[in-house]
């Protein structure tokens, strides 16, 4: 579907570099970035936090029936990763290696989808099984 260009641009740093936030009080790290700590509420500050990209597979699936923007990409494998800093994050697994719960991964930089042949190309972190 055609849409404005700002939608992913505004979160490019998070999408390219796995940059989230951390609560200055309880030190809980969050991805994606959020304004308020889920534990401490409004009484604390959140600061930028760059994640290492290392983690393990917590769950995974292979998607055969995609949403509109992903018809060229399907089928593809997505996982929920337990990052070494704590939070769970969803992301694609690349290069067709067979996933297993508990397998170690590292973040890589890949194309997420393209808006047809003339639209924008969207880039994103994904995960590679190491």
């Amino acid at each position, binding site marked *: 579907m055609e849409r404005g260009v700002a939608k992913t641009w505004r979160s490019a740093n998070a999408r*390219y570099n796995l940059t989230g936030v951390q609560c200055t009080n309880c030190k809980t790290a969050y991805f994606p970035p959020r304004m308020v700590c889920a534990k401490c509420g409004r009484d604390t500050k959140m600061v930028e936090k760059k994640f290492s990209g290392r983690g393990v597979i917590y769950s995974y699936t292979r998607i055969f029936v995609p949403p509109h923007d992903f018809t060229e990409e399907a089928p593809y494998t997505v996982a929920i990763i337990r990052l070494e800093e704590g939070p769970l994050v969803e992301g*694609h697994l*690349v290069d*067709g290696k067979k996933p297993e719960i508990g397998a170690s991964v590292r973040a890589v930089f890949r*194309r997420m989808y393209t808006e047809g042949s003339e639209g924008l*190309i969207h*880039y994103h972190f994904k995960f590679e099984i190491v």
Partner: protein
Amino acid sequence: MSGILGYGVYIPAYRIKTEEIARVWQDDASSIEGSLHMKEKSVPGNDEDTATISVEAARRAVYHSGIDPKEIGAVYVGSESHPYAVKPTATIVAEAIEAGNDLTAADLEFACKAGTAAIQMAMGLVDSGMIKYGVAVGSDTSQGRPGDALEYTASAGGGAFVIGKRKEEVIAEILKTVSYTSDTPDFWRREGASFPSHGGRFTGDPSYFRHIANATTMLLDATGTTPKDFAYAVFHQPNGKFPLAVAKQLGFTEEQVRPGLITPLIGNTYSGCSLIGLAAVLDIARPGDKILVTSFGSGAGSDSFAIEVTPNIESKRQRLVRVSDAINRNKVYVDYAMYLKHRNSIRKW
């Protein structure tokens, strides 16, 4: 003069064998392997392009160099397969290496030598004092027309170099660089065309050999050196055969060229080619070793560099992803049908 602070390469995991391509076109695989000195080439994943390859290589280079990416003042990406015709790859790379916004960036195109042109431009800015660090990338997901001889070699990969001049940071000093350039139409791709065209055997003597030989000779003259003074020599490698032939013609030995000869393993990565060859040599070079690099880009031109390795190279190696590791990590072989799917070349309408 400025030098190399760190480098990184990236090669996609996928491979297709020469014999698999030959099977489809009913060519004789062994004679092609013999004439090109190539058994397989890298293929980009269906979610990889010049931007993603450039980012992976640049991230490795920045990590290897140990610099603060916020101090990078220029990012140049050389490629003949930029994902956008208009909209820079370099800005994607700059964002993805967290270089901040206080920098200049641009995409370059000069067939297979845009990567070395990027290095020269970064050197100019560093040496003039305009910037502290520059990042130069050469990377491609090159296209060979199905059934054309180029299809056996056109592959995907990239290399990135961090350029700076603080002595304590430089792992290899660039002693001198010269270029030889002429208007020679040996290979081209028009705006909007999916595949490049080329002049067949015209790409040989008047193009590849003439430009590399002239640039290299100019460099040797300018530095007062002879081939014997160099531990290693890297020449642009469109296949496994040309660089050995041009080396012999110039008086270099096969032993000087072999360590930097990567195309037989992964194919011709175009703008990435000379950079990956140089990286492979730096992986094993010792302090004091001199390295000669001469690139070639159709259209046509050659950039030639004389480089001397410094003692800093040893301590930084623990942060390095070696070319051999980048090539051999979990390789996945694809057949021709999957290769077409990866290249998004299957018509669905």
